[in-house]
């Protein structure tokens, strides 16, 4: 009796999502794990990857042209997240390889977290919690005052899935929303600015919600931060390299902007140490999207895409 062979899935990384759902993935697919092999990845792929049609990666496992050359049967690259900046998209296109991400499943949680970071910076929630826990309240009396959120001009860089959700949430707090995006969105009630500098000039708070591409690398630079001004706050839930990090640190240390909420950094998990002593920054370890519910939905989306792929049906969340 023939045992039905499970389709092969090459996993790079491994992605955190894969670690959480490894057992479930393994019941449906034959998993190839170069990261557990003593062989260097190139050799492993040459040896074991010849018939692999689908691979799963994530933000920290690059899929390069060189790697694609080692996988002649590859037709599907999936990433266990939203960002695809680690994948050589033009090369995939050239080779007729489909690229899939997790679609919209992470955008609500990321938007929620972005708002949480902003309120924390403005109202000093983490700083206040630290103050209480070290017993400083009875000794030092009243804690320093924060900044009101209502009425603030919020500039959203990238009005996509995440940016639009941030906008909708902040409207309820009485914020005035404007944005910069690659294209002007015709049916949104927010003001559009043609470039990020002008957006910053007209905003108290900037949210970085766009993807990382050649065009957006170091988009938030010295000029943008100067335009934002001394009372300005930056929240980054996009990718670290969208901001010129060393400039940002300088601006924060010298008080040239008022504060920042940062979930992503240029060289994760390294965070500039100068930030550790600042009370006007909130720094988190790239977890804006990390909820049980989002991971469950992401797992389901990836499996649905794989099942569609292996039955020659249309992909669910192609990029």
């Amino acid at each position, binding site marked *: 009796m023939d045992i039905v062979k499970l389709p092969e899935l090459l996993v790079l990384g491994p992605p*955190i999502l894969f670690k*959480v759902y490894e057992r479930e993935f393994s019941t449906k697919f034959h998993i190839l794990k170069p990261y557990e092999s003593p062989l260097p990845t190139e050799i492993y792929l040459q040896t074991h990857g010849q018939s692999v049609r689908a691979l799963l990666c994530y933000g*920290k496992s690059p899929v390069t042209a060189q790697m694609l050359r080692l996988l002649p049967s590859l037709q599907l690259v999936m990433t266990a997240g939203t960002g695809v900046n680690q994948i050589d998209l033009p090369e995939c296109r050239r080779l007729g390889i489909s690229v899939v991400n997790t679609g919209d499943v992470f955008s*609500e*949680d990321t*938007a*929620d*977290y972005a*708002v*949480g*970071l902003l*309120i*924390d910076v*403005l*109202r*000093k*929630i*983490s700083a*206040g*919690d*630290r*103050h*209480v*826990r070290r017993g400083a*309240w*009875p000794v030092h*009396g*009243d*804690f320093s*005052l*924060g*900044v*009101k*959120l*209502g009425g603030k001009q919020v500039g959203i860089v990238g009005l996509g899935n995440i940016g639009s959700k941030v906008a*909708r*949430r902040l*409207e*309820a*707090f*009485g914020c005035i929303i404007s944005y910069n995006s690659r294209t002007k969105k015709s049916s949104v009630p927010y003001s559009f600015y043609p470039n990020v500098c002008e957006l910053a000039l007209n905003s108290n708070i900037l949210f970085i919600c766009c993807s990382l591409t050649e065009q957006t690398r170091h988009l938030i630079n010295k000029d943008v931060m100067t335009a934002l001004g001394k009372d300005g706050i930056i929240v980054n839930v996009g990718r670290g390299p969208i901001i010129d990090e060393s400039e940002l640190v300088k601006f924060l240390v010298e008080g040239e902007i008022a504060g920042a909420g940062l979930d992503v950094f240029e060289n*994760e*998990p390294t*965070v500039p140490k100068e930030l*550790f002593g600042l009370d006007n920054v*909130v*720094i*988190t*370890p790239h*977890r804006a999207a*990390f*909820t*049980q*519910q*989002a*991971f469950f939905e992401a797992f389901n989306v990836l499996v649905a895409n794989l099942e569609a792929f292996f039955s020659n049906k249309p992909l669910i969340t192609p990029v």
Partner: protein
Amino acid sequence: MDASIGVLMACPMSLYLEQELDKRFKLYRFWAQPSRQEFLKIHAESIRAVVGNATAGADAELIDALPKLEIVSSFSVGLDKIDLNKCKEKGIRVTNTPDVLTEDVADLAIGLMLAVLRRICECDKYVRKGLWKMGDFKLTTKFSGKRVGIIGLGRIGLAVAKRAEAFDCPISYYSRSEKPNTNYKYHSSVIDLASNCDILVVACALTPETRHIVNREVINALGPKGVLINIGRGPHVDEPELVSALVEGRLGGAGLDVFEKEPEVPEQLFSLDNVVLLPHVGSGTLETRNAMADLVIGNLEAHFLNKPLLTPVV
């Protein structure tokens, strides 16, 4: 204004307010007196106004000690530190600072919900300690869509509801009576409310009836996945019960801006990662505290000029 009008400020609350009161009246700082008894013996007759806040106001004892007291102007919206019945009896006017602080308090409630559910403060602490390593992670609880239950659907409760709705949170509430113009689901008991929500927010006034409105039964009904957010007053919650529920895991988490005996905070809470503790900063922004101070000054000026009070309570 008449600089001979004595105004007694009950405790430190705002340097801006002190400055503005100094300009217009004879300001006495109660907390700076070496002996309150001595101070009252000498100055009681000239004090015509008391300025209080959430920490200290005008209780029966103080009111009795100030025979010329005409008005108590509170630098807060809460009136629990003022003996309102005594003021009514004696014809003493009382004002507070509604509306100007509503948004800040509601903003903070949402900030606390996000901080607790998504463990933002804990994450920040983790990174600052230099503990972030590649590949480590923790999955937290999604906030959007959680059922939010509000105790007290007044100005602040409604503002919390409006914000939570933008996160697709279904809203329910408990109030002394059902409110006619809302679509939110009404529960006639706090236990019912707690049994049917994921996040319970205390947003009502503190009165003898609402003291310990969040008790052991309510906390148990909220449950091991439930989160309590207190932006009202410490005594709304039975604090020892809250602490044991959190320590024992019978309650999922808490975001607390107020405590029964501020500035004391139960130390058993300090080692918990599912709580966020703030030093009563609900209205703590420069803009709002200045607006509150302006309202206190405006009320006092109106009173002493025989004009209608801006925000009278009594």
